[in-house]
């Protein structure tokens, strides 16, 4: 599992990925016209790679850390855990569970994963809840309550809960707590920001949450005052996933060649959906300010323009802002381009995440893991990761972003130190193995096994 797996870049299918292509781009450095190859992107997702085993992580975290993880899990041998969430595919929670469940299982904590079911009406209500808990307006009607409670009851009847630990992810299945019985310990893992929830929706959910034995949040800023203990689990990345594993230099080069990215010149990259909250227009402004002083290319790569009408509008605005500048490379990639994203991050001189609002910001974690000097906005969970001048540069404006680009491009030794620290920070705090350790520690504390 430790050998990099190379994806073959398949021929571009008509209408598959909306990749902005400059057929004849002028190289501003040399003044010559250079031709960009048409990017080739597969229009179907590749088969998922097999889940890594614990031993696969040893070269990354070291034998001593891996031994410690096994020691922590020892008192829990034979205990059973059930994870419950609302979707088996898509989204960060499912992606994380796909990796976490086999790891816990291998540690001897038998872990199963079940997904709740429900009709369209249920998921419309829970989507409303999700947005409302993020602070959006939402009218919680008696019908909405009834739909939520009815579907919860149906799921309770369908599922059994005789495990030692039950972990419920996010608000959709929160009502399953009504099935808690005996000595089992229930944990509510909230992945969303509850700092400013809609009071009606939170008022409806809080009595359920209070019945859990513990809650887990991704940031202290996202938590609520609750009567139960609240653990802090930072979101994490898997260093062996396609998005983060080591890649062969030749593969990175082939991706850059395919996308028309010149590796002989500095590359500044922002990876994110084409979403206003990621401020791609702000990044282009920063590029234009910095470009007066230093030569570099800007890569804006992400998705969201094909499945989100607003994303398409933002992509159009980004294209307009980029104009005919051949050094701005805009790539609207499908969600299965994890290897290509990985290669672009690794090829970058600097990674930028100039979000106006952010959750935890896992794209920042990915960049830090690749030891890239990272410039990121001081929003959401980013300051937890980017400790200004230690693991990256925090910025608060377009001007700040432009200045940091100039500074880091002209002080590469400082960038190297930031990148090195950033990778250590991720290794210590934001890897999948750390997450597995947190879960077994929490189970141990809740059961009194390791208190």
């Amino acid at each position, binding site marked *: 599992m430790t050998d990099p797996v190379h994806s073959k870049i398949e021929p571009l299918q008509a209408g598959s990925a909306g990749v902005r292509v400059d057929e004849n781009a002028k190289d501003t450095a040399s003044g010559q016209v250079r031709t960009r190859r048409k990017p080739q992107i597969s229009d179907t997702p590749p088969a998922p790679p097999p889940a890594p085993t614990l031993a696969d992580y040893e070269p990354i975290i070291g034998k*001593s850390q891996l031994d410690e993880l096994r*020691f922590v899990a020892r008192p829990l041998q034979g205990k059973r855990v059930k994870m419950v969430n609302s979707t088996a595919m898509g989204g960060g929670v499912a992606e994380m569970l796909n990796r976490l469940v086999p790891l816990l299982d291998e540690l001897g904590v038998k872990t199963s994963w079940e997904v709740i079911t429900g009709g369209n009406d249920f998921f419309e209500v829970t989507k409303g809840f999700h947005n409302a808990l993020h602070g959006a307006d939402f009218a919680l009607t008696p019908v909405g309550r009834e739909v939520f409670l009815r579907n919860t009851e149906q799921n309770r009847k369908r599922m059994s809960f005789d495990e030692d630990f039950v972990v419920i992810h996010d608000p959709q299945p929160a009502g399953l707590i009504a099935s808690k019985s005996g000595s089992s310990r229930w944990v509510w893992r909230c992945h969303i920001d509850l700092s400013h929830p809609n009071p009606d929706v939170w008022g409806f959910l809080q009595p359920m949450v209070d019945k859990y034995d513990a809650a887990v949040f991704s940031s202290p*800023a996202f938590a609520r005052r609750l009567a139960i203990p609240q*653990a*802090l689990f930072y979101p994490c990345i898997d260093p062996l996933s396609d998005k983060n594993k080591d890649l062969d230099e030749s593969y990175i080069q082939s991706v850059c060649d395919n996308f028309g990215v010149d590796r002989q010149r500095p590359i500044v990259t922002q990876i994110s959906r084409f979403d206003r909250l990621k401020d791609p227009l702000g990044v282009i402004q920063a590029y234009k300010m910095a470009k007066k002083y230093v030569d570099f290319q800007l890569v804006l790569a992400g998705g969201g323009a094909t499945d989100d009408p607003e994303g398409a509008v933002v992509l159009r605005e980004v294209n307009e802002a980029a104009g005919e500048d051949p050094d701005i490379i805009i790539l609207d990639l499908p969600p299965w381009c994890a290897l290509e994203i990985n290669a672009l991050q690794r090829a970058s001189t600097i990674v930028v995440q100039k979000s106006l609002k952010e959750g935890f910001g896992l794209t920042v974690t990915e960049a830090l893991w690749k030891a890239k000097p990272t410039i990121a906005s001081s929003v959401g969970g980013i300051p937890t990761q980017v400790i200004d001048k230690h693991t990256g540069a925090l910025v608060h404006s377009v001007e700040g972003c432009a200045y940091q680009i100039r500074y880091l491009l002209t002080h590469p030794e400082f960038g190297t130190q930031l990148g090195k620290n950033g990778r250590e920070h991720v290794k*210590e705090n934001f890897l999948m193995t750390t997450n597995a350790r947190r879960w077994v520690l*929490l189970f141990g504390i809740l059961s009194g096994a390791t208190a």
Partner: protein
Amino acid sequence: MPSTTSTGLTPARTPFEFKSAAPLLFIEREQASNLEELLQALQTCPDGSIFQHTFRTLEEHHFIKEGFSNDFAHWAYTDLREVGLGERLTGLDVREFTSIAKLRERLIQIVEEFRAATPSAEESTSKTPFYFCSSKITVLPTEHSATTLAEFIDGLKQVSLHSIHYHFIEARLRRELETNDFSIWLRRDLGLEQEAKRLNQIDIYTSTLEGVRRKILQTLQKVG
């Protein structure tokens, strides 16, 4: 008569058992956006919070060797933007404290003195509150133990940085002594008085934890 080792030292009667520690973080109720709230929270927060934001800072940010001595200092500098308070808090050395109660007293004293000397700071408010967390520590065995200096050096090379932090930094709270597990064993069981003293002089605030490990090794590899 006990045999001696290649360093000429008698093997220890009590082996050094390397242990490690795994922390789990909890979010506490206290938070602060200004000096008054900080002071109040310092008075009421659990001991685990004082430990987390001082001793544990060095472990969480073990790769940084300057300007990150504790979370309170970092917040005062970067969020509250009270440089004077940040400096005073940065100067706090956890090695001078063998109990959390004393450390808490000192933190409160620093904030109170700064408030008294800087009335204008009363107006300062941070957009980013200081969120008090605490850590619950689970102590773990490791597969490494030593009865000779060579075995000790070998174990030291292989254990995790969590283990170094546990024995070298956290130990003083457990033992209520201004020293560390390594120095105690080296002096008591191997008779390495000078080396034990030198280990205690390693500056944990100007080194990374990996750097601390290197300095300990350098000190011990000179023996014999």
